[in-house]
């Protein structure tokens, strides 16, 4: 008589055999990915969620520790969007971006263009322009502080002092602070953009240039009509990354100006740091950081839409 009730022992054997088969096939993936995914969930994913969560609370270091915090709904968000400090930091960040991005892109492209010929000794110059890109911002900021020291002893002021121009109070004057910080950014960024554009330039087939030259086109026309359009994808990528980077300036501001004078160099990230760490308003800082996230996403999207039409070599 055939048994209708399944044999439990047989089922266990088949189940364990199946598991063994899965293990044999995937043990490497399991051993590698399980701990890594756990690490990811704890150290990458959870903080992002927790940040969103805390933007709806009134967390401070004290009330978090003793559990007396409470939900405040959209209060932080409303506070952020109606806070003049926040809007000023937005304006400062935008001013910085407008100063930094065009300058670094133009300089990077300029260096790449003039250094694109394989002449003898050109590699040395490429190295020189690239060196600041791998140097720590702190190290260069240390020099910058004295390069543009506000008294007549500073390097810049000493030089213009020779021709009789008065010393410029770089660090104390609200209108000069951002430009010199942006100049530091450009100094550090131009080199890596240069290398990137060099790669892009290499990808343009020389046949294009040759036929244009035969047609009698001048250098500037060639650059405008052939080089630039073909570099569009490279330029777009560089633009997006540079903009995102410019929104995240912090290190040099923290040691050079501390966001001063009078908040003239307080960028958004500095605001997050200041409010979150110095003043302990964790919920508020979290809300600001998410607003920053949204803004970066929007600007990236706009840039992509505006410039993202594909180019192919036809």
């Amino acid at each position, binding site marked *: 008589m055939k048994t209708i009730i399944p044999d439990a022992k047989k089922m266990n054997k088949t189940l364990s055999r199946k598991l063994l088969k899965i293990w044999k096939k995937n043990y*490497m993936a399991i051993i590698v990915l399980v701990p890594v995914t756990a690490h990811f969930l704890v150290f990458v994913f959870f903080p992002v969620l*927790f*940040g969103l969560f805390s933007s709806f609370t009134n967390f401070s270091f004290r009330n978090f520790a003793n559990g007396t915090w409470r939900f405040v709904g959209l209060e932080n968000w409303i506070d952020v969007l109606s806070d003049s400090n926040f809007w000023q930091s937005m304006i400062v960040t935008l001013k910085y971006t407008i100063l930094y991005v065009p300058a670094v892109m133009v300089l990077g492209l300029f260096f790449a263009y003039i250094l694109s010929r394989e002449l003898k000794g050109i590699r040395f110059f490429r190295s020189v*322009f690239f060196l600041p890109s791998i140097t720590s911002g702190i*190290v260069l*900021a240390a*020099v910058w502080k004295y390069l543009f020291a506000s008294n007549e*002893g500073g390097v810049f002021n000493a030089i213009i002092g020779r021709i009789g121009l008065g010393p410029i109070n770089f660090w104390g004057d609200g209108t000069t602070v951002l430009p010199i910080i942006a100049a530091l950014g450009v100094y550090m960024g131009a080199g*890596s953009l240069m290398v990137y554009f060099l790669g892009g330039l290499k990808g343009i087939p020389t046949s294009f240039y040759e036929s244009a030259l035969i047609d009698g086109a001048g250098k500037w026309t060639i650059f405008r009509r052939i080089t630039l359009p073909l570099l569009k994808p490279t330029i777009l990528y560089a633009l997006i990354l540079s903009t995102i980077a410019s929104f995240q300036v912090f290190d040099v501001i923290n040691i050079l100006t*501390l966001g001063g004078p009078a908040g003239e160099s307080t960028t958004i990230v500095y605001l997050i740091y200041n409010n979150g760490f110095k003043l302990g308003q964790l919920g508020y800082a979290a809300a600001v950081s998410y607003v920053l996230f949204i803004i970066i996403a929007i600007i990236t999207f706009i840039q992509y839409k505006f410039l993202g039409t594909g180019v192919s070599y036809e």
Partner: protein
Amino acid sequence: MNTKMTKLGTIIFWSGLIIFAGMFIFPFIMMITGSFSDTREIIPRKNFWIPEYIYFGNYKNFFANSKSISWVKNSFVYAVVPVITGTFINTLVGYVLAKKKFKGRNFLFLFFISMMLVPGQVSLVPNYVMYTTVFNFTDSYAAILVPGLWSISNMFLMRQYASTLPDSIIEAAVIDGSGDFKTFFKIVFPMLKTPIAVMGIFAFLAYWNIYLPVLIYMNDPGMYNLTVGVGTMVQLDGNYGMQMLGAVVCLVPVFILYVFCQRYFVEGISLSGIKG
């Protein structure tokens, strides 16, 4: 583009380049000469950046001070450990996600990648709360090393590279009886030597230069790395010579790497996009 240059054009080209290059090198020269200048006076004299004589006192003070020595030590710890752990973990994960087929593989990969879009500032405060209250990482190497075991962007790079490896070689090894991990270490890992080297160099640089995490998790100045240490020196507006010296010391390993590993830098930028 190789159009011919006129004689005048050549002169303008090279002299312009030399001038530009000079301007770019100048801050580094300032650093070096500054480190040898004696600036212990309270009121800085005019043109303080041109040293009157070579002064070794700054070097003596820096290397005799246990605090600044610990900055150097810490910088190496913070920079070298993540490179070692990252080399193994990023490559392993990248390889598994590229070559091993299993259910949910694409989902997991996209899940990891999606977090690359979120700016670091979003997790800044939550991480701080977590690390200081739950994990107690304050003033501990763990604050930097534990999160730094691997990175999503480097794992992404490795995955891209691993997916270009020919399946035939891997399959041949499996047929020969080589287990998964053995195959990985004997065959896959050596094939990925160059991207690993590039990744390692950039990771070293990034961790050598870190500032904010060290700043917020280390209250004891003895736990600072050179970057934060020099940063505090600059903020306190003290001795110009010492600050320049700090900058020079911070720069030396970077510069050495730069001189000897030039080609990795160039490859790295063009492969993974712009740094910073």
